[in-house]
């Protein structure tokens, strides 16, 4: 059976509506959401209410958590200190806009969802803030899948969709204990399981280099994962961003499909966590 997985909606109603239309058109009736319903975008209440009205099972993203718990993100996730400042502005604006009922909904979201061998998280099984990037050290990435007890791990957070499969893995080791005499170390080889990480990309704030909203469709029967790109009315959201008084670079990002950063690597940035 096919099911759709979406992530990082970021209060972008036009993008969410377009993606849901695409899912409905394909006749897929199971949807899972990996969180970050709010933040950056101009329609936090509308997006939360649409997800609630569709009854979409959702796990909590880092923005959802931060709106409830107060700013808790490791600010290293921002590419520059100015970007961090803009993120804080968006945080306070969103917190002021969200209705108490929608805040309660975000607070009620679980950190992970599980369906058979499929595990759904926002960032990683360790944290909503951890990025599972496509070029992350392979053994460490596989460890996240295995430690979650998953055959396939669905995540978001990076805003770039991908499917990563690990295979032909093994680890050879030598074990020594105090009672092992010289040359009596035991040797072992462990074959690693074949596992996959599927990143659903971002509906509301894509950063893959295009302006289309992205999400994925997993077909369990055919064992396929399709990365979907859905055009939507980007200008409608950009106008709403500017009308709301949110930082203009948020609109720039939507028009270009890239992170906006004054410096890609700010050496003076210090992790505050």
């Amino acid at each position: 059976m096919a099911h759709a997985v979406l992530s990082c909606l970021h209060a972008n109603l036009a993008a969410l509506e377009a993606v849901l239309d695409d899912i409905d058109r394909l006749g897929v009736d199971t949807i899972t959401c990996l969180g970050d319903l709010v933040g950056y975008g101009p329609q936090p209440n509308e997006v939360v209410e649409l997800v609630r009205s569709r009854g979409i099972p959702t796990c909590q993203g880092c923005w959802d958590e931060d709106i409830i718990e107060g700013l808790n993100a490791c600010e290293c996730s921002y590419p520059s200190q100015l970007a961090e400042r803009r993120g804080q502005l968006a945080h306070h604006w969103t917190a002021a806009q969200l209705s108490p009922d929608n805040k309660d909904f975000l607070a009620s979201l679980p950190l992970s969802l599980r369906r058979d061998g499929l595990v759904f998280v926002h960032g990683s099984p360790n944290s909503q803030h951890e990025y599972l990037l496509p070029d992350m050290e392979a053994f460490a990435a596989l460890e996240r899948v295995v430690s979650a007890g998953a055959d396939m791990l669905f995540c978001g957070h990076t805003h770039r969709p991908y499917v990563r499969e690990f295979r032909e893995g093994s680890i050879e080791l030598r074990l020594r204990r105090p009672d092992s005499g010289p040359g009596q170390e035991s040797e072992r080889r462990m074959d690693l399981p074949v596992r996959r990480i599927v990143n659903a990309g971002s509906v509301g704030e894509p950063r893959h280099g295009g302006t289309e909203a992205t999400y994925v469709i997993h077909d369990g029967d055919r064992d396929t994962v399709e990365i979907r790109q859905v055009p939507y009315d980007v200008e409608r959201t950009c106008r709403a961003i500017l009308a709301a008084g949110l930082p203009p670079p948020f609109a720039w990002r939507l028009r270009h499909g890239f992170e906006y950063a004054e410096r890609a690597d700010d050496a003076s940035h210090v992790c505050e966590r």
Partner: protein
Amino acid sequence: MARWALLSGLGGDLDVYEAVLADLRRRRVDTLFLLGDLIGPERDCRPLLERLQHPRRGELRAHCIYGWWEEQLLAERGYRGERRAEALRRESGEDAVQALLRAVDPGLMDWLAALRFGFVELDCALLHGSSADVGDSLGSATDPLCLLDRLTRMDVNRLFTARSGEQFSVALCGGGITARVRDLEGERQLRQSVPSRQVIGVGRGLQYTLYDPGTDHLDFRTAPDPARVRRRGFA
């Protein structure tokens, strides 16, 4: 040549510490690392903590980090924000928390609070648990994938850990993995080898470990039990 001694889990027991120090006198050790759990709930920890702060003349000064028991105490005494000693409470109940509070004089808290999470020396991480958590218990039976992850997080070649109390060494010495990525730009595949790295459990109490960074030689040792030594009249 530098030689390290690594110990942990003294639980406030000065007799055990002195027994290890006595055993070390014949081992040409020049650096002593105490990987946490200096304290415990079973005795007054003041004599040991004062000795660690003020070693006797000619005695090695221990480089200390905090362990799981210190973390519980620091949390319960308000040094960890809103967190409390929930792990201890869950495992052993309220009585154990109260015993721990009684075992450590509040006047010693600032010194304990200043202890570091770990050291990185010569591409070796010296920790109580792991890079994931001070309570992370790594042992000889731990999934090698988990061990490799903990090494990778610290980007070190050797990880010395104490939480499990076990003396062991697991050397990751071969293997690899193929990762295939498909995204909107296309498909690519990369084969990665297991890096040659090692996780070492240093033991607890009288059981400790000697390490020579120059030769990579490990020696798992057990100091004579001070109670048995005293009974024989050698105290």
